[in-house]
């Protein structure tokens, strides 16, 4: 299996607190310091280009850190700010308890945005309206971990696009991630070296990456797009990779 090439041509923006379970988990603390109330505008962050992990890539995980996977849906923007395609992503982060001022090393590590083989035209998915009933599934070694239902969005897709567009223009090639859901205990599925994580949804290309331990070397090669070296999860990785080779 080799890593396939599609990566977003523009800036990728992520969204937080946009699924009901995650929002409900945070709601009791929203009035506490330092937050001082529920967020008004969409809570956004940037997934920089170094995070892009193409379909089939191996992603290096730092030693001693808890890494969480998130199934999300990205909207690929076309002309005039309107989305033309949708894609699944695995939005990875180091686990963190505070949403106040998290350092970029949590979300912006090399390889921390798993991508599919290619985006899917919205026309093939019934348009924006056709996404409302979509359910995303996250599997670890083929075992189901989480289902994320887009009916549980806090801001639905048209509302999110409108509220983001109030202060910044999404350009052609940019991608807006709609957010991700938590598990019932408020955490997200954890991944470790040796794992293979697959995210899938009907009509969309799946996302599959394998996770390996980061090399201790200071001057190692870039951690994405290396050939897999076998180990736990590689059978699934190879079977999924083969479908799209």
């Amino acid at each position: 299996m080799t890593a396939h090439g599609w990566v977003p041509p523009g800036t990728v923006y992520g969204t937080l607190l946009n699924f009901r379970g995650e929002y409900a988990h945070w709601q009791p603390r929203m009035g506490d310091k330092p937050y001082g109330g529920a967020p008004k505008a969409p809570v956004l962050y940037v997934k920089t280009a170094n995070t892009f992990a193409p379909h089939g890539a191996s992603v290096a995980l730092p030693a001693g850190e808890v890494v969480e996977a998130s199934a999300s849906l990205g909207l690929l923007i076309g002309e005039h700010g309107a989305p033309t395609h949708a894609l699944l992503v695995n939005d990875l982060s180091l686990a963190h308890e505070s949403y106040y001022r998290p350092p970029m090393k949590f979300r912006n590590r090399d390889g921390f945005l798993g991508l599919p083989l290619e985006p899917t035209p919205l026309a093939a998915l019934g348009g924006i309206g056709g996404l409302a009933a979509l359910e995303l599934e996250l599997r670890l070694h083929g075992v189901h971990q989480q289902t994320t239902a887009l009916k549980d969005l806090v801001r639905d897709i048209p509302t999110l696009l409108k509220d983001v567009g109030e202060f910044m223009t999404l350009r052609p090639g940019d991608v807006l991630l709609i957010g991700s859901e938590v598990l019932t205990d408020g955490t997200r599925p954890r991944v470790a070296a040796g794992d293979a994580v697959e995210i899938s949804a009907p009509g969309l290309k799946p996302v599959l990456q394998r996770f390996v331990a980061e090399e201790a070397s200071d001057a190692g090669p870039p951690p994405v797009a290396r050939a897999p070296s076998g180990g736990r999860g590689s059978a699934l990785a190879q079977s999924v990779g083969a479908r799209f080779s």
Partner: protein
Amino acid sequence: MKRARIAWAGAVHDAIERDGQLELLTPAFKGRRVAADEVVWLPPLAPVPRPRTVLALGLNYADHAKELAFKPPTEPLAFAKGEASLIGHRAFTVRPAGVAFMHYECELAVVIGRTAKHVKRGDAMDFIAGYTVANDYAIRDYLENWYRPNLRVKNRDTCTPIGPWLVDAADLPDPMNLALRTTVNGTVTQSGNTRDMVFDVPTLIEYFTSFMTLQPGDLILTGTPDGVVDCQPGDVVITSIEGVGELHNTITAPTLP
């Protein structure tokens, strides 16, 4: 050498500074000189084959941290912006209607020159292509304590002027001893020196590249010193850094629908 990217005579051109004018590098006009006010100034950055990473520092001058009632951080406080927020020299920045506090931030911008991963502090300068001036405007009315500084404050269209020049790193051997100054309508409102950064440029490069690969053309906006004041439509804001350039910007009101 000081490099610019401009629009002139119906096309985009690379140019260099020569005797206070712009000398075009475009083959058809090579050597032709045009005046600064004959052109539209674009961000002095060559296009890149991937989304440009734009990193920006919060609270990287101890006096500014004090001004905003923060203790200096123990780790760089950084956030990322989209390239769409960048505009060039002599451009207009929109102040939203009904806000009370919009301020400039004069910042030394570092442009990465080589792919950089796990770079040690002592080697960091070798990875820099050059420097320019950025004005990282903030609208404090929109500040929320969720993933701060939130993008509604920091990633607005027109709110990150950058330029006018990209100054080659070789021409600026000591970037950590440069005076910064901002004037609003000719009155000095902000002055500082890059030597007062909490985390200096080599430290920032070591820090970022410890977990992320930076590519040629990526930007680090290194934070701003004390002295930010509110700016109103019509105000002319000039952010300048010794040896790097004077970045002019004019605040404007939103266009009524």
